[in-house]
């Protein structure tokens, strides 16, 4: 029976998404944002292929090329966007930096999401003491500034294991720290949706069928909380990238040898007043556009998927 | 004298799928102190009608054509400000959910006094006395205490009484009650219905009751109008409609009630369900569910015919009346008319219906 009506299936199943897609196409800002975001994703995926220089190559850094202004000022066709203080090609560094920032952002949010969703589901579904305990944990976590937690962890790690091993593991630690710091946002949203869904009779129906709690939580409740999650997901990626940039700017993020957008801005900052403004400004613009685009996408999703989600 | 006269009212909804008709050619009139009821299932358009009369239909909906006359004053063109005056003073509304009308952060008294002050020149003291007087009228015990309570402190039935009292504040000519008892328990429902009926009698207020429950309607209304898919299909005295329904839809609705079949037997169901605005069938909208559907039901629209008692829009009834006229040379029909003279005089023949 299932095979006969496959065409019909597709048409009915995707109706909601087609509707959403048409709404999307009619919103120029949203389309532009998505295009820019895909562009960012593509260049960061293809960074090793399109970058004019290989960042890992030891000869990449040469002080004789340092502080060359961008092509349109200096006319040096080797370095389109100029070079930084260590003589690295800024275009290549930005490409790799974007790749690194996006990776950290996405994976940190995945950690946040998995943690937050599980905790939120458990707290909302079982309720009672467990709910109270988990939500108070979330409150405590939120009452620490994320930045503070990150600074403490990073500083501790650097002193305990030494700078060398830190540089080696910096990316993973950043992902972990940013990921662990912001799970309560997900947990709260999921819990709120779970509490609303739990009241509905289809959950009772599933319980009457004898279906286990785990299956009810993940198979019955979770799909009904997807729309608010999607919105938080986009906006949180932007937030995670900012957090990483801020940490790097403070010198607690990525090491100079593997620059992310944040550490590029940081290292460029000291050249600001010596005339080499591009080292700081170009990565900054790259970062600002990326964050702006993510926020615009998130806002659009919020308006169209679920207007009632709280505004953060 | 006719108090309210609605003539060929068309209400449309401007949606993405097009300009869809929600109400089509609605015509009826209401006399002073008369109680009429609109009956139909969800999707019949009866609530939209209630909102249209007071010009309260919101955005995608609009009045396309037709006239609504109150005391010979046209309402459908009035501005929002002029309409607000009418809504408060001349026409009052009661909704299914009392919390839709009551503001949860103001006491009952504050809301009642505010309503009086905004429409009259009374002073605060006088307004309070008037409000308490109305609370007494709806049989609320210790009205002085209730006056200072918040809506959430009252039970469902009590809230609905307060709503009725608010509706009565400015002595309106018409009360529109949209499913006023659906959210209430059976015993409370009976009391509220009695109250509504009595209040309308005492104050000579006309009542438009909107309900899906024929039992409720039969308790309150003198005249019943049955709606299906945005059209009136039958209207006449309530007793006649219940005892001798003409339109197949009315018959189906009545026969589907459990008390119409023997215990343990299957109920007489109407197959299918009410069509939505999007896929309203051609011709008579009921033909897909009608057990007597003929070919012409699919194409043409039946006219309203007056059979001496009620107005019906159905080809089958049309044919039957024609046969009767031809066969019996209208002698039978005259007798019938004489018998029902009292009732038929009471219902003013509808301008459109008798055409």
């Amino acid at each position, binding site marked *: *029976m*299932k095979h*006969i*009506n496959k065409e*019909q*299936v597709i048409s*009915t*199943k995707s109706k909601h998404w087609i509707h959403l897609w048409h709404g999307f196409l009619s919103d120029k800002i949203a389309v532009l944002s998505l295009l820019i975001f895909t562009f960012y994703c593509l260049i960061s995926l293809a960074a090793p292929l399109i970058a004019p220089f290989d960042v890992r190559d030891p000869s990449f850094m040469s002080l004789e090329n340092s502080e060359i202004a961008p092509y349109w000022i200096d006319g040096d066709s080797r370095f389109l966007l100029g070079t930084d203080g260590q003589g690295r090609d800024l275009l290549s560094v930005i490409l790799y930096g974007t790749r690194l920032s996006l990776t950290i952002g996405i994976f940190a949010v995945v950690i946040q999401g998995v943690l937050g969703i599980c905790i939120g589901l458990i707290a909302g579904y079982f309720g009672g003491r467990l709910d109270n305990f988990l939500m108070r944990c979330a409150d405590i976590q939120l009452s620490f500034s994320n930045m503070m937690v990150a600074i403490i962890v990073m500083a501790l790690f650097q002193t305990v294991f030494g700078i060398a091993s830190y540089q080696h593991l910096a990316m993973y630690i950043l992902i972990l720290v940013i990921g662990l710091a912001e799970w309560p946002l997900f947990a709260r949203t999921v819990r709120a949706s779970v509490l609303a869904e739990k009241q*509905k*009779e*289809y959950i*009772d*129906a*599933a*319980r*009457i*069928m*004898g*279906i286990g709690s785990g299956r009810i939580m993940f198979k*019955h409740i979770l*799909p*009904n909380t997807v729309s608010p999650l999607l919105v938080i997901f986009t906006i949180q990626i932007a937030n995670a990238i900012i957090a990483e940039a801020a940490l790097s700017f403070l010198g607690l993020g990525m090491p100079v040898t593997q620059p992310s957008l944040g550490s590029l801005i940081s290292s460029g900052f000291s050249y600001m007043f010596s005339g080499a403004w591009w080292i700081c400004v170009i990565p900054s613009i790259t970062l600002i556009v990326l964050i702006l685009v993510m926020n615009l996408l998130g806002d659009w999703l919020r308006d169209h998927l679920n207007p009632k989600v709280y505004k953060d | 004298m006719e108090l309210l006269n609605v003539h060929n009212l068309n209400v449309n909804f401007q949606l993405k799928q097009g300009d869809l008709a929600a109400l089509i050619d609605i015509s009826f009139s209401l006399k002073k102190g008369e109680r009429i009821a609109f009956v139909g*299932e*969800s999707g019949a358009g009866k609530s939209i009608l209630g909102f249209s009369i007071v010009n309260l239909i919101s955005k995608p909906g609009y009045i396309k054509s037709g006239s609504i006359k109150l005391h010979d004053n046209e309402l459908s063109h009035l501005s929002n400000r002029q309409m607000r005056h009418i809504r408060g003073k001349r026409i009052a509304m009661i909704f299914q959910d009392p919390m839709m009308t009551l503001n949860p952060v103001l006491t009952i008294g504050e809301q009642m006094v505010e309503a009086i002050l905004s429409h009259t020149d009374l002073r605060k003291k006088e307004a309070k006395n008037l409000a308490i007087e109305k609370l007494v009228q709806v049989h609320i015990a210790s009205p002085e205490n209730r006056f200072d309570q918040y809506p959430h402190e009252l*039970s469902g*039935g*009590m809230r609905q009484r307060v709503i009725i009292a608010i509706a009565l504040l400015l002595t309106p000519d018409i009360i529109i009650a949209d499913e006023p008892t659906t959210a209430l*328990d*059976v*015993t*409370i*429902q*009976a*009391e509220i*219905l*009695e109250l509504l009926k009595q209040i309308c009698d005492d104050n000579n207020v006309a009542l438009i009751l909107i309900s*899906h*429950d*024929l*039992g*409720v309607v*039969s*308790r309150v209304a003198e005249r019943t109008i049955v709606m299906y898919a945005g059209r009136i299909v039958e209207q006449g005295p309530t007793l006649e409609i*219940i005892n001798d329904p003409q339109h197949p839809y009315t018959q189906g*609705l*009545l026969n*589907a*009630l*459990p*008390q119409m*079949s023997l*215990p*343990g037997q*299957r*109920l*007489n*169901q*109407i197959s299918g*369900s*009410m069509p939505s605005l999007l896929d309203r069938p051609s011709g008579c909208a009921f033909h897909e569910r009608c057990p007597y559907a003929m070919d012409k039901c699919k194409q043409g629209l039946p006219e309203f015919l007056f059979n001496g008692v009620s107005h019906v829009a159905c080809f089958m009834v049309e044919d039957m009346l024609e046969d009767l006229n031809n066969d019996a040379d209208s002698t039978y029909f005259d007798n019938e008319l004489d018998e029902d003279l009292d009732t038929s005089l009471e219902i003013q023949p509808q301008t459109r219906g008798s055409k």
Partner: protein
Amino acid sequence: MKHIPLLQISHLEKRFSVKEKWMSQWSLNRGRSYKKQDTVYALNKVTLTLNKGETLCVVGETGCGKSTLARAVMGLTKPDSGEIYYGDQRIDNLNDRQRLIFRRRMQMVFQNPYASLNPRMTVYQTLSEPIAFHNPQLSRIEVDQKITTLMESVGISPNWVDRYPHEFSGGQRQRISIARALSVEPDLIIADEPLAALDVSVQAQVLNLMMDKQEEYNLTYLFITHDLAVVEHFSNRVAVMYLGTVCELSDTKTLFNNPKHPYTQALLSAIPRLDNNSQKPIKLIGEVPTPYEAIIGCPFQARCPFAQEKCFIEAPKMIQQPDGSSVSCHAVEEQRL
């Protein structure tokens, strides 16, 4: 018909505490903190027996505990005291795993067809989940076949198997709910106001379907409703509930011809009927109170026109009447009525 008891409920009690936050339970009064807890007494010593193959209707107004009764029987809420037997097995104290075999035998149909189906699951998913769960030995094709026959039997075209609930009307959703309940081949179906959200003409369709299925599978129904017209048509026996107690239990015919409890009389007189408009409904005093305290005496005392001193002191017992009905009322007992 031989009466074989299928479900026995005895002295079932359930209380709910209203304040759920532990912080707000503590409040200060004249400098001393004390713990306050509002308790609602939802069920008070309810005793009912459901015989195989019959339809027992539980009637009452909002807050009389009829839905709580259904949920307690289904194991969705744990009763505070009392016993529930299915056949000769006690089921109220089982854990989820032990209860599993009884899940197949008892099913439930809910009130709101818009909330009782998961909006993100197709009809196929909704129906296949319980079938595959309770019959793990079935192959995919057998499950599909079962779903097809099931859908046909409730009057939904099997071509619509991959549609989502929002594409169906209220009546069709209620049919799917019934199909889901039937999918595990139960003996007992508890229906909690299954018609309340439906239109009159659709109510008839669903009620007919339920009667057809009862005949076909020899089902037992515990039918919870506030609509007495449906009760009169559909049930074999009626239990009238008020404030968590059963106040009258009798055959449908006896109840409608000769209601004994003053509350039943008021309830019957209040049905909006088409034929007897002359009869004025019996007016009760006030409205159904919320039972914050354990009731002393008869639960109906506050609204009863026949209440006497005894009704405020002593709780009436269920007493068998000559015509087979049981009534719990002092006035009936003393033949004051």
